[in-house]
């Protein structure tokens, strides 16, 4: 059961080996991985839309989609058909080429990142030895797609949204990468597989003080990276319509949606891989563990959306630069202390408490330093 998908792939490759020369087998093995990922991405996205609508509806005391299919299970298909047959509108003054390329360029990196996600034991499509770097590099390409969409639409609101979104993405990328550094220090490798292997036997990094903090920072920055609520300033309906995808409709619009949901999934998957032990876990098959943890995190994202109000621009930037970045730098120091005190063992009291004290102290200090300016309560003597 654990190796179900691996075995299916091996069978396919074996089948081709019987018929074709051996070099075709390599190609088949590559093709199988590519097809699997290319199908998985859209599938995940389609059902994430349904899950989001259902969960948010429940949180708001509604039922959510329930007409198409049992419990609304076919709703995503209906949505897909609707998107496909909608009219594709291109503004007259738009830059046609950019307008067309932008959604593709946004979806492609979101899908490419799937290649290094370890979905289960032996289930990483490409086990790059620079996996984490690949993840950081590829997700940074997305900003260019957003620029293209914003500029190509030739619409003020789009450009405003695009500028906001890019400023946000490059700001949050820094604490995000910094919060990964402790994991790399602890594991000594950039490969995603090696990171998961290092967390065997319940040695999940989230159980260490630095791991917990890193996990929180990484996840928050990730939520900001994929422009999700409460960091969805770039597409704030009430201020700038829909930001960089104001001028899109039909399938192109669906592609933006797809990119957003797929990156929500990859962020959750990466958090799982880096801090929550990846596919490690007892009893259940490894890939099931991975999906359970990932969907748990996605549930938290939906919870954010249903509860938290949107941030203001200055609050957004202040959070990244004045709070998360310093904290993630302290976190690196804390990891070094943990590493030298713990002496190869996963848990020793000293190695646990000293970094914890450091982190709590710096959290407290940063909170003090970042205290928001509260105007004095105004008194109107003549009112009463």
């Amino acid at each position: 059961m654990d190796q179900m998908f691996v075995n299916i792939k091996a069978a396919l490759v074996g089948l081709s080996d019987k018929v074709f020369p051996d070099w075709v087998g390599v190609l088949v093995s590559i093709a199988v991985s590519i097809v699997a990922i290319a199908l998985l991405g859209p599938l995940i996205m389609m059902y994430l839309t349904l899950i989001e609508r259902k969960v948010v509806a429940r949180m708001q005391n509604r039922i959510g989609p329930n007409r198409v299919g049992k419990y609304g299970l076919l709703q995503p298909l209906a949505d897909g058909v609707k998107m496909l047959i909608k009219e594709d509108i291109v503004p007259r003054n738009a830059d046609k080429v950019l307008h067309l390329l932008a959604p593709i360029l946004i979806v492609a990196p979101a899908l490419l990142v799937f290649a290094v996600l370890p979905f289960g034991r032996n289930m990483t499509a490409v086990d790059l030895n620079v996996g984490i770097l690949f993840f950081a590099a590829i997700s940074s390409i997305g900003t260019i797609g957003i620029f293209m969409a914003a500029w190509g639409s030739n619409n003020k609101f789009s450009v405003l949204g695009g500028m906001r979104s890019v400023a946000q993405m490059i700001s949050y990328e820094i604490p995000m990468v910094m919060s990964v550094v402790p994991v790399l220090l602890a594991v000594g490798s950039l490969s995603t597989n090696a990171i998961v292997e290092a967390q065997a036997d319940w040695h999940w990094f989230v159980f260490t003080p630095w791991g917990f903090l890193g996990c929180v920072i990484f996840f928050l920055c990730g939520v900001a990276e994929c422009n999700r609520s409460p960091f969805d300033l770039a597409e704030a309906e009430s201020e700038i319509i829909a930001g960089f995808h104001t001028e899109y409709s039909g399938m192109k619009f669906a592609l933006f949606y797809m990119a957003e949901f797929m990156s929500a999934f990859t962020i959750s998957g990466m958090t799982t891989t880096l801090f929550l032990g990846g596919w490690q876990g007892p009893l259940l098959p490894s890939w099931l563990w991975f999906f359970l943890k990932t969907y748990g995190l996605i549930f938290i994202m939906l919870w954010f959306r249903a509860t938290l109000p949107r941030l203001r621009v200055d609050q957004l930037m202040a959070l990244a630069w004045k709070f998360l970045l310093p904290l993630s730098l302290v976190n690196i120091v804390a990891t070094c202390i943990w590493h030298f005190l713990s002496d190869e063992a996963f848990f020793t009291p000293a190695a646990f408490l000293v970094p914890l004290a450091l982190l709590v102290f710096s959290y407290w200090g940063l909170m003090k330093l970042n205290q928001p300016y509260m105007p004095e309560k105004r008194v109107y003597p003549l009112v009463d």
Partner: protein
Amino acid sequence: MPQLEFLIKCGVYGLMGLGIIAAVGAVLLPNLFHAGLALAFVLVTIAGIFMSVGAEFLGMVQILLYVGGVMTLIIYTIMLTGRLGAKDVRAQNRQGIFAAIAAGFFVCWIGPLILKTGAWPQRESDSAPPLLSVEDLGMSLMTEYVFPFEVLGVLLFAVLIGAIVIARQDRPS
């Protein structure tokens, strides 16, 4: 497997061809925004070439720093200094022919020299040269190359201050 090697070879040559086409675009396209995107494409193809010669780390750094960082800066500046839909500005000055001659001369001068030189300090070909892993690079950055690395840090700090001072808009006090 020679067939696979052939495929990879085709891929690398294809990357080079695309890179050169995109580079021409980056230099000649009248719309600067398009030129910037063409440059981004060149950078990605070069990252691909780095990967194909075994410099995975550099390939990734190239994408992360260049495509993610420098290109964002460039495009931001284009958006700050251009106007939406401004297309009627001449992009090239009148030195086109002169420049083409200069570049052609440059290629004709160095190209044959490169082709004639067989004596790059090639290692013995019987043992494949060891690929540098990320660990090797990281270790030497922290040991052998630690001094230039620290100097680079100082440099980036100083340049950051300078760039902010230059670009900052003074508020009337």
